[in-house]
């Protein structure tokens, strides 16, 4: 169990022919604590997979430093090859070797283990233990290609952890599974990683996966880390408009600060003048009067009546509007409302009586309304 420290990591693909150089990763600083489950979240092309492959040693960094524990594994002066890094990795398409059985796949990693090659009975015993952990004991001698996607993913995990690596890397491991299996494997992977206590770095473009699994999330965009934090903090206090929209749904309302309180439990409470009138919000930073901000109002925090929020320690925001559209979605109803010319999305309980064209009053709490300075 070792920490991973990244300092100013860069990866640039050199220009060639008539192509411009590609800056895949630009100056990433991250500290991943020993034993934690860390998620790199970003859309395609954000550089998250490239960054993961730099940690793995499958890509060579072009700048900065990567350290695993006390050992610098990548720097301009010195690069430790992947085979010597003691890192386990689970790949997107499982990368299970089709010409080997389940046990042979796992044993391969033991044979080449950095901590010393393990063969014979000792190896068989260890393989058995690990297959037990991932729940595949019954499949040890089966050809690896005769397994379902979920089972192959477990083989990949067993192979990655069998030689007790310092760090475990996941490259979008669940993206090829169907939705139900994905939800199941999420908790399963998380459980196994916790049980083994290995420092894990997990790449995904799926925000739900990130929120459910992570101890900490780093949101990446255009090769840079735009925010790092615990899932709740990122969801409640996105660092910028991009993060607000990338993680969860968000109504974005611009306004200017009228007043700012001293720091309280949830940060500074602000009074903000917007097109919807004066609203209350929280901010991690102290702001001064006249600063322009964007308010992040989550659809699920908009309520049709204020009785849910009575007794709140902070003011409750109230806006009136007209229902333009109501879409029944099972557990809830999705509303599109027009409030003083501003269009808002809201999610309300399916049992709320709503009519298209009807006038409604919406309320939402201050604590759940984040203000992002522009």
């Amino acid at each position, binding site marked *: 169990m070792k920490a991973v420290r990244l300092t100013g990591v860069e990866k640039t693909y*050199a220009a060639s022919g008539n192509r411009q150089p590609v800056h895949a990763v630009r100056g990433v600083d991250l500290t991943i604590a020993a034993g934690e489950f860390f998620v790199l979240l970003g859309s395609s092309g954000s550089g998250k*997979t490239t960054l993961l492959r730099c940690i793995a040693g499958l*890509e060579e960094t072009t700048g900065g430093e990567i350290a695993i524990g006390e050992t610098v594994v990548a720097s301009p002066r010195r690069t430790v090859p992947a085979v010597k890094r003691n890192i386990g990795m689970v790949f997107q398409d499982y990368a299970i*070797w089709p*010409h080997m059985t389940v046990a042979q796949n796992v044993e391969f990693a033991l044979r*080449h283990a950095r901590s010393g090659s393990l063969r014979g009975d000792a190896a068989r015993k260890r393989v058995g233990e690990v297959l037990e952990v991932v729940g595949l004991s019954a499949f040890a001698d089966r050809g690896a290609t005769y397994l379902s996607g979920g089972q192959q993913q477990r083989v990949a995990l067993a*192979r990655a952890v069998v030689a007790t690596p310092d760090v475990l890397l996941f490259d979008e491991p669940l993206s090829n599974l169907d939705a139900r299996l994905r939800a199941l494997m999420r908790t399963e992977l998380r459980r196994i990683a916790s049980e083994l206590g290995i420092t894990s770095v997990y790449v995904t473009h799926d925000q739900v996966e990130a929120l459910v699994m992570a101890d900490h999330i780093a949101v990446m965009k255009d090769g840079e880390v735009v925010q790092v934090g615990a899932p709740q903090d990122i969801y409640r206090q996105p660092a910028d408009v991009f993060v*607000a929209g990338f993680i969860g749904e968000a109504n974005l309302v611009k306004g200017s600060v009228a007043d700012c309180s001293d720091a309280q439990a949830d940060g500074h409470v602000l009074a903000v003048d917007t097109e919807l009138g004066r609203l209350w919000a929280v901010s991690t930073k102290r702001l001064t009067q006249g600063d322009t901000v964007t308010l992040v109002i989550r659809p699920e925090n908009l309520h049709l009546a204020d009785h849910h929020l009575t007794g709140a320690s902070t003011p409750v925001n109230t806006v009136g509007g007209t229902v333009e559209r109501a879409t029944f979605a099972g557990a809830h109803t999705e509303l599109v409302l027009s409030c003083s010319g501003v269009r808002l999305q809201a999610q309300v309980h399916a049992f709320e009586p709503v009519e298209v064209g009807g006038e409604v009053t919406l309320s939402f709490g201050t604590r759940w309304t984040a203000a992002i300075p522009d």
Partner: protein
Amino acid sequence: MSLRETEPMALDRADIATASAGDAAVTTPVVTAASGRRFARPSVASAAGLLTVALVTAPLLVLVWSSFSVSPLGLPFTPGSHLAVKNYTDVFTDGTLVKPILNTVFFVIGSLAVGLLISLGLAVLLERTNLPLRGLFFALIIAPVAMPQVVAGIAWGLLLDPQVGLVNVMARWLPGVSAPGPFNSGSLASITVVQGFLLVPFSLLLVAPVVRSTSGALEEAAHMTGARRLARLREVVLPLMAPGLASVLIYQFVTAAQAFDIPAVLGLENGTKVFSTSIYKNLNSSSGLPHYGVANAMSVLLLVVALIPMYWYYRMIARSERYAVVTGKSYRRRTIELPGIWRTVAFLGVLAYVVLVVLLPLLILLWMSTQKYYSTPSVSRLGDATLAAYRRVFSVSTFIGTLRNTLVLGAVAASIASAIAVLNSWLLLRRRSWLGRVADVFAFITHGIPGVVLGVSLLFSSLYLGSHAGIHLYGTMTLLVIGMVIVTLGVTTRITTAGIGQIHRNLEDAAEMCGAGFLSRIRRITVPLAAPSVANAWVLAFAYALSNLTLTVVLAGSGNRTVAVELYTRWNFGDVQTAAALGLILTVISVTATVVARSYAARKEARH
């Protein structure tokens, strides 16, 4: 108002760079060209790439250099030699060369016309019409690929013998035709047509996919416009097939321009020389001293003629075939329903071709190898059948050595070539370095190095090494192995590149993350997963080395005689029965190896 939905999902190049091998292959390997991981660059693979370049260039450089070397003894690199263009002026002032050049032009154009027209016709009949027994015919027409050309040459020599050749005897059943002839096995027309026949199997393999993939839908679209059949053919079908057919034409042009076996077996005795056999004749002059200088300069000229189209061909298919990833997309075929009478005519035509070109040569070898005397097959002589020729072959004390030489040559050369090919493919597909691309080009163009030219190059290289470095390779197995590795690098590399290209790069990365070093990864992951293509590459190289006559005859010494050389010598001495027996033995080995390797590959393929 979800921002997430408006976030562009377009693939950024950084992701393409790390995408699957398949994806990356389609997007041409430009992106990461210069991004190679500096560390852990497996020097073994780079060494293979450099070796490829060296193996191809070194002998050719020696060839070019020595072609400008003139010495009183006629041998390059001997005392008193100096640089001059005399060898070239000799080639052009020597009037005896005009005939071979004209012969070669006729031979190349004629054999290409015969070979490609037959292939095209067969491809259309077998791929697009309702001809009966299409599958069986296809297999039978392809089968002669495994028959060494020198053996085919002997079979045709027997069939077209002006006195007793079976084809001539049958032709004389026609009124007004009398002996000798009407055909002469040694005439230019004969060697041209026979070479044309020998071009058919491989041409059909290349042309069939072109004909098959010409989408029926496009033809139907033309049909709906009311275009008449000929107009449809001219304006839609032919233009669609043109690029595919052009590449086959170029490839087979190179094959025909350097063809040696048929002109050597059939033509030399009769004095019919083409360019490649003229080079050989200048080395092994029946009268007087060898003309090394002239052979040398002619080799350079032939090399230029074959190599330039080969590079052209490489450029042509670089984008289409080599980076094509199997998509499993099936083309809709529109079967042409032949009307009854034409179906019968076409069937009989194809049957006649199969009997004459595929079965007769085999049967005549079988006949001749079991007869005491040179004779026309007849029922009355069936009773005289004897295994004397085979007994003679195995009783000759040197034969076992010759056979062992042949098998060792085939196995060693095929193994080395396959190993280099795997590493070359890896360098090209995984590393995507400039060295990988250069090695790929060099390996590929080896088909454009005529066997006789490579023979001359290696001959002079070994002479140079002998006189300047004290390394004596002339007449050794080592020299033959080197030559055979060079000539088989192209085909083996192409096959392994296709095979390794189908393996997802993550499978190797996963092994790397397990701590497996480069050679472990290649041995335990890459090669087993690419086993079908590695087996195919190996057996093709093996069969090629087994049947190769040009290199073996040019470089033959006492220590490296092969069955093909033995065969050729016996034939030239008139020991027809033994030559036929040797030919059949060689064919059986070649066919057996091919069948075993193919079925192994097919079994592996089915398992994955």
